[in-house]
């Protein structure tokens, strides 16, 4: 099935696509048919910079288990580092 549903997140950072590194500004996350993975459905994440055009995209297609493992790994990595170490320098520091 096509879910037609997409979640978005504003991002600040970089990603490496087919034309090299670029500043990534948005992620689109959706559960739907993959383009490449040999799965009927997958958790798809597009790291993009819409202002740079459609080819500024790093795409991943994951099983549900892989996506949850990725979320857990991100949370664990953040928990293992001093709070705020990777915080955006352009935003106000979190209140202690």
């Amino acid at each position, binding site marked *: *099935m*096509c*879910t*037609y*549903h*997409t979640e*978005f997140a504003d991002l600040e950072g970089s990603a490496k696509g087919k034309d090299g590194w670029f500043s990534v500004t*948005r992620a*689109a996350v*959706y559960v*739907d*048919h*993959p*383009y*490449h993975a*040999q*799965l*009927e459905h997958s958790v798809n994440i*597009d790291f*993009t910079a*819409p202002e740079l*055009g*459609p*080819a500024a*995209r790093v*795409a991943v297609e994951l099983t549900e288990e892989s996506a949850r493992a990725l979320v857990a790994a991100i949370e664990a990595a953040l928990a293992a580092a001093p709070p705020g170490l990777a915080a955006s320098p352009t935003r106000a520091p979190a209140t202690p």
Partner: protein
Amino acid sequence: MNEIIDSSDTFTSGTVPIPGQGGDEIAAYLARPLAAEPRGGVVVLHHMPGYDEAHKEITRKFAAHGYLAIMPNLHFRDAPGADPDDAAAANRANGGVPDARLVGDVEAAAAYLRGMPNSNGKVGVIGYCSGGRQAFLAACTVDLDAAVDCYGAFVTAHSPDGFPIAVPPIVGLAPELRCPLLGLFGADDKFPAPGETAELSAVLTELGKEFEFHTYEGAGHAFFSTNRPAYRPEAAVSGWARVFDFFGRHLNTP
């Protein structure tokens, strides 16, 4: 010249510009038999992951069977000239293909085919997955002679698991269905589940519309997709036979 060798199946294929909805120029993939005899045409609607190689292959298959065939790039406006997967992602981020735009693009594609010198004036539409829903939409809104819906979900409004549906149901358009409809579905598909297609069947029967639905046991969603794990050869081979029988009856008659 060897008269036994028959070259009437020769066709050419490639990308052409066509005027889409609102006069926008969009890319389309055209597969065109060269023989002069008049023949029917088929508009192919690709699935949501894009205007890809698999659906270009399907478009060529229709030409190999003697039809004029064209597949408009439904994502062209979102990312002109981009790779199909990038264009599909851009289209998704933009909210998908608007129904009104789809209708205009199918109208334009059908007109393009009817304008070809070896067209007999008859044009059908076939769509896969999201394109299946769009084929039904086109069959209710565009002057077409036959339509094939391959496992299009959300024609009716079912969401048995309670998840939000992001596209509007279009079953209300059923009274406007203008042409015979063939529906090909998988018994193991959940979207559309057999209950949803049965509901659509009941609506069309009540309205006295010409249609035939076939649901294949042992097949689920996307059973025609030869490059996907969902491919089911028995259902796909039978399905293709039904498609060519159906289009043969409705598009290749004088």
